[in-house]
């Protein structure tokens, strides 16, 4: 990260976000920021409100209180809490994946990726009319869209399965597909909801590679909800910890790992016997296979 990038305002600034459902306060006065070309992880025990934060950011919930300000590198300021759901994907270019994978199961892998590029293809097809009569400008746009899809398919090794129904893919492949589908919308901020859930250690490592690639080559902001510490600690630049809807820690992975509040609320309490500090250090430092055998909160 260059000094210039450090001086730039953060890509995403969340101020005093509060989400209430009747009497239940899911998120309580949360403020944090996420920088461009950085991976920010939101962690916390189950029920801490992480997915609720995502839902507020991506327009599925209207926050009770709060400001969600997106400042893309090109300039300008977008207030996400005031935008209608789908416009956050369309204009603000915030993309997301879901905890329970939401693909289009009976459409092929390639079709999933083409649908992701819907808006620009709609424009190219003259909002359908030109496309109907077969104007070449649409055919060219569709070819380009396929190229972009192919690029990402090659990246995650799904090119061979491009014509299969998305619903028939194995679990790990479906997760990868969901991520590259989000990337096909050419987003500025990528929000991933537990992308490593259910992945084996090898797949988790591949996921890390993919996310680092996205961060370094495509230079967008990545926001990540995760439980898998080997992913979080290894690749995050910035970690925010939630517990019962409140932020209890915010900083670099190293700082958060050592924060007693975090250990108390999350990392520490899950362990039956306290891990020797060398093991804990090992875990964070090189994310080796033995981390996979550690009991994790489910």
């Amino acid at each position, binding site marked *: 990260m260059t000094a210039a990038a450090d001086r730039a305002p953060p890509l995403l600034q969340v101020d005093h976000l509060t989400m209430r459902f009747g009497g239940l306060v899911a998120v309580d006065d949360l403020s944090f920021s996420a920088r461009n070309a950085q991976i920010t992880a939101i962690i916390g025990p189950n029920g801490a409100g992480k997915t609720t934060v995502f839902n507020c950011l*991506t*327009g*599925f919930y209207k926050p009770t209180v709060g400001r969600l300000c997106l400042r893309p590198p090109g300039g300008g300021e977008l207030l996400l809490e005031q935008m209608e*759901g*789908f*416009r*956050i*994907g*369309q*204009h603000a*270019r915030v*993309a*997301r994946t*879901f905890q329970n994978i*939401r*693909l*289009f*199961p*009976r*459409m*092929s892998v*390639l*079709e999933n990726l*083409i*649908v*992701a590029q*819907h*808006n620009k*293809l*709609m424009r190219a*097809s003259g*909002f*359908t009319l030109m*496309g*109907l009569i077969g104007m070449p400008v*649409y*055919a060219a746009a*569709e*070819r380009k869209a*396929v*190229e972009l*899809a*192919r690029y990402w*398919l090659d990246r995650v090794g799904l*090119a*061979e399965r*491009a*014509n299969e129904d998305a619903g028939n893919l194995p679990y790990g492949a479906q997760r990868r597909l969901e991520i590259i*589908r*989000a990337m096909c*919308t050419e987003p500025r901020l990528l929000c991933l909801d537990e992308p490593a859930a259910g992945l084996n250690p090898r797949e988790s490592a591949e996921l890390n590679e993919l996310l680092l690639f996205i961060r370094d080559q495509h230079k967008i902001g990545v926001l990540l909800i995760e439980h898998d510490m080997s992913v979080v600690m290894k690749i995050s630049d910035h970690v925010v910890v939630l517990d019962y809807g409140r932020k209890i820690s915010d900083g670099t992975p190293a700082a958060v790992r050592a924060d007693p509040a975090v250990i108390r609320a999350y990392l520490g309490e899950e362990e039956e016997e306290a891990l020797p500090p060398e093991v804990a250090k090992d875990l964070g430092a090189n994310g080796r296979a033995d981390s996979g055998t550690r009991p994790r909160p489910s």
Partner: protein
Amino acid sequence: MAATATVASSPARLPFAGMVKEAAIFALVALALAFPLVGFNILDKGAGSELQTRFPQMFYGVGVLFVGKLAMSLIDAGHARAIAAVSGALALAWFLAALVGVTGTQYQAIAWLTWLVALSVAVRGWVVMRRARGTAAQARDVGAMVNRLALYVGPAFVAVAVAIPFYAYVIDDKRLVDLGILIFTYIMLGWGLNVVVGLAGLLDLGYVAFYAVGAYSYAIISINFGLNFWETLPIAGAMAATFGVLLGFPVLRLRGDYLAIVTLGFGEIIRIILLNWNELSNGPKGIDNIPRPSFFGLQFGSAAPKGTVSFHEFFNIDFSPMHRQIYLYYIIMFLALLTNWFTLRIRKLPIGRAWEALREDETACRALGINPTNTKLTAFAIGAMFGGFAGSFFATRQGFISPESFNFLESAIILSIVVLGGMGSQIGVVVASIVLIGGPEWFRDLEAYRMLAFGGLMVAIMIWRPQGLLAHREPTISLEPLARGKGS
């Protein structure tokens, strides 16, 4: 009714007793069900009614069901004997049905029931035998196979469809052409609704409203403004599409079942308005003397109006009422194929894919920045437009329309065609139309049983294949493996 064929080689007496008991319980329940409505007949008497009993028919019907259930149990238990019994029963039933012509309507119902039960038993026996031989479970791939053959089946079907009127002309069978027109009308309506229900996954139970708008638009415009069919067609389509947007806009964000009921309500509202707004629609009397289509200015009547030439005079052939029918046939065929072409093309355009994506998972669509409301409205409007075209055709074909033709049953039939055919499957709509519309036409004489059979068929097909007869989907674009990726 359990499915597995067990290996019982000897008919043990104890299982047989069990089977009899099971069949008896079944028959008892049937008896309780049949007792009030079958056992008694309410007849008019003066200002009120009186009761008549029909116990013999009731007991007979229950008896037939008892035998049928027993036969089914025997088949399931693996008795070859059952098969012989089945074929014997079927022959007997057919004999009874033939007798119907002699004995009159009183025993018609009984004969049909017997035949139906015997048929069910026979089918069941056949299915069990196939399963025992291990040749079952291929039906699933029929859909895939048919869709792959679509490349050949499609043009072949069109060729046959084009040829039918000539054949009918030669054998002078006007009824065949009429049937063709009827089936094609429903095919077009099915293809139009397919855009809404099959592609976009929006449950529309009021599609007949757009059919009505198209019909009345054509009638009113052509009578009052003198425009001919082809000139009015786009206007009628535009009006129907406008209605689609108006009706759709407030309700498209509703969940599936609610959307269904609301669209049903809209269909009824339109019908009631047409029934009562006499100034606009002439109320229950309907609109008569709707202009018929002409062939480039040539009228189809036996005598042309002054100053024009009639069709048969121009071509120097004898007048036949079939000329107009054949012309109408080709018009509806053209319109239907237009709908089909449009659908096939639009599936490969972004909006078409967005419809299908919306059907699969609306939440994911929103996350991808797709505007669900506009996307749904477009589907609704385009489906409505084709319904409007079909409605205009209907008006010009009949020459007379009234609100009665546009009731909920029509919407239900069209929806059934789409769902039974296999949602989203163009060929499925064709097959379902031929089966559901053409089939009962054979039973024209048994008009009363037609709707009963229709309802029963809907239930039966759904239970047998809930996904529809030919549900299969081919992707609209594929990735070529080696060289540059191309769209298909």
